[in-house]
């Protein structure tokens, strides 16, 4: 262990030849460092390069350019079967012609571990994923959730330096997904192995990860803790992909101390706290989350804008409103139904004030 990082990608590029004969950069100059013991997620829409990145770490694909290190060791010339990592595949890829015991014991068998020790460690692994006594079953005889656990046990039994998970919960139904999310997180803490988790589900990534890399079109747009990614998105794509966001177009007027004054197109002036530098007259987008907006409860030393309710969606815990400002820009507002009866529902057509603090919005330039 020569490095504090479990996995490092340095300026990694992966180009594929397309069927039409062109070349496509599935991963385009990605650099990231994944700490030892971390639960790290690669998040993005399909085709963003997250799975290709994972496959390069596993050794199934070789980078066109750049370096991949595992615990400080350069891996470019190391074939998949010699890398100290194991993978949980999206479709599990359990060997259908083998029993559960043979499946889980496969890695140990390859290492030359004796049959008796293998059998002992397999039953331990089955205990760990809470499927004891399943040794003699065939993968076909198991449910999706059980297969998922077997795949996990098959990987973890080898005590890999890094566990790679490629959308492992993708094929499960919602309820099972939620259960497995918690279980995976708990398991990761117990075994203390670095997990690299590929998902397109932002909620899943936020729930489980210590850190997240948001990817799009082969580029890592932002790497950070879940709350950083959510509260301080680096650009419009990240703000939009993670959770729901209102974008308001405007122009930077001037800086007053820590406050930036922005003229929202047709709507009026707002103030946003930011330490970053902007030029006066710069075109910007102000991103503000729906839950950070208040209706009809004006904030002193905050932004208070007038608008009209356009739609009301009651969903039990919350009520969602669509509010249009005088200038035509529209926002979505999420109000929690804390005290029903006291807090009367608003109706379509009602005049309202929309309020938010100086710190809630985020100014985005790209």
């Amino acid at each position, binding site marked *: 262990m020569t490095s504090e990082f479990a996995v490092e990608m340095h300026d990694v590029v992966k180009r594929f030849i397309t*069927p039409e004969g062109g070349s496509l950069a599935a991963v385009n100059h990605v650099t990231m460092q994944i700490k030892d013991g971390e639960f790290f997620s690669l998040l993005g829409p399909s085709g963003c390069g997250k799975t290709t990145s994972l496959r390069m770490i*596993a*050794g*199934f694909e070789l980078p066109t350019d750049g370096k991949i290190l595992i615990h400080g060791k350069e891996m470019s010339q190391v*074939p*998949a*079967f*010699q890398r100290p*990592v*194991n*993978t949980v*595949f999206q*479709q599990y*890829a*359990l*060997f*259908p*012609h083998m029993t559960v015991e043979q499946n889980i014991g*496969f*890695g140990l068998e*390859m*290492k030359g571990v004796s049959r008796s020790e293998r059998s002992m460690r397999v039953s331990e692994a089955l205990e760990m994923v809470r499927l004891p006594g399943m040794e003699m079953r065939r993968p076909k005889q198991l449910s999706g959730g059980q297969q998922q656990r077997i795949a996990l046990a*098959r*990987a973890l039994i*080898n005590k890999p330096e890094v566990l790679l998970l490629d959308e492992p919960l993708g094929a499960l139904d919602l309820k099972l997904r939620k259960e497995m999310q918690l279980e995976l997180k708990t398991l990761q803490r117990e075994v203390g192995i670095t997990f690299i988790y590929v998902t397109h589900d932002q909620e899943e990534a936020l729930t489980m990860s210590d850190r997240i890399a948001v990817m799009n079109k082969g580029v890592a747009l932002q790497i950070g803790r879940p709350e950083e990614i959510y509260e301080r998105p680096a650009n419009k794509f990240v703000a939009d992909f993670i959770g729901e966001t209102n974008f308001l177009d405007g122009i930077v007027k001037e800086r007053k101390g820590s406050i930036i004054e922005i003229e929202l197109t047709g709507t009026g002036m707002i103030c946003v706290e930011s330490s970053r530098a902007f030029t006066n007259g710069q075109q910007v987008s102000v991103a503000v989350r729906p839950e950070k907006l208040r209706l009809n409860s004006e904030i002193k030393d905050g932004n208070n804008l007038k608008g009209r309710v356009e739609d009301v969606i009651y969903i039990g815990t919350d009520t969602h409103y669509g509010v249009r400002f005088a200038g035509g820009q529209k926002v979505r507002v999420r109000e929690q139904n804390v005290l029903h009866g006291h807090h009367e529902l608003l109706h379509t057509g009602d005049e309202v004030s929309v309020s938010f603090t100086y710190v809630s919005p985020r100014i985005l330039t790209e």
Partner: protein
Amino acid sequence: MVKFFRRKKGLQLFGLISPGALWILLFFNLPLLIVLFISFVQRGRAGGIKLPPVYTLENYRQLFNACISKFAGPACDRFLYIGIFGHSMRIALIVTFWCIILGYPLAYFISRRRPIWRDALMVLVIIPFWTNFLVRTYALKQVLATEGLFNSFFMGLHLINQPLDLLFNEFAVIIGLIYGYLPFAILPMYTSIEKFDHSLMEAAADLGAPPRRAFLRVMLPMTLPGVIAALVLVFVPVVGAFITPDIMGGGKIEMIGTLINRQFGVSRNWPFGSSMSLILMLMVLIGVVAYFRSGGEETRRAM
């Protein structure tokens, strides 16, 4: 009403099945019974069988006790025919082995192409079927002949000083049979390999299996049904082949097929030919049944 429909359905089914069933019954099953009958009677003087039929076990006994007394005096070779059976088996096993060894990588290669290439390549494998088998075998004979393409080419390059004897020996027969039956091996193996999920090979590599072990432990067992199907589809016709050993062996290489062929031709010994056919059939049958009994469910489907 229900009964009427049920009966009508039965009639329809009968109508659909009977032409094919009748064909098989008349032209395959019945002749087989005739062969069985002939194998237990004495031969006629000018071919055919002696009439009225005289029942005998001589035709089967002869298999294990060959006396060709007429021409060479009372010279008996107890193992002459058994030897030819064994020899045929050996040739068939060698041919089957090479068809699988050569066919598997090719089937793998084709299955890994993009669909458009895959179809084109499979057509190239199948096209030779459209040429007459006899024509193909004669063509191969020309290639291997003393003055043939192969010898001329290498003589021309001065890699060899005198033509190699490539024809009229066991080697030529084996080459001819491999040449003729390779597609029969490729097709079922291709079907199996094409269905194989290659992420399983990644999983094996991921778990520390070097390519060779991953192949032996995962891919081969999972594509074995195709291999076994190829084995059956090549071995069965090859063990009874007679055109190829006849042409490529120039009458010097005796196989069961040529032997049987001769009994119905120049030797005019139908009963002996029949008994040999049945013994050959029995041997193949035992082999195939034994395989299916030992869990060849998947193979049956692959075929």
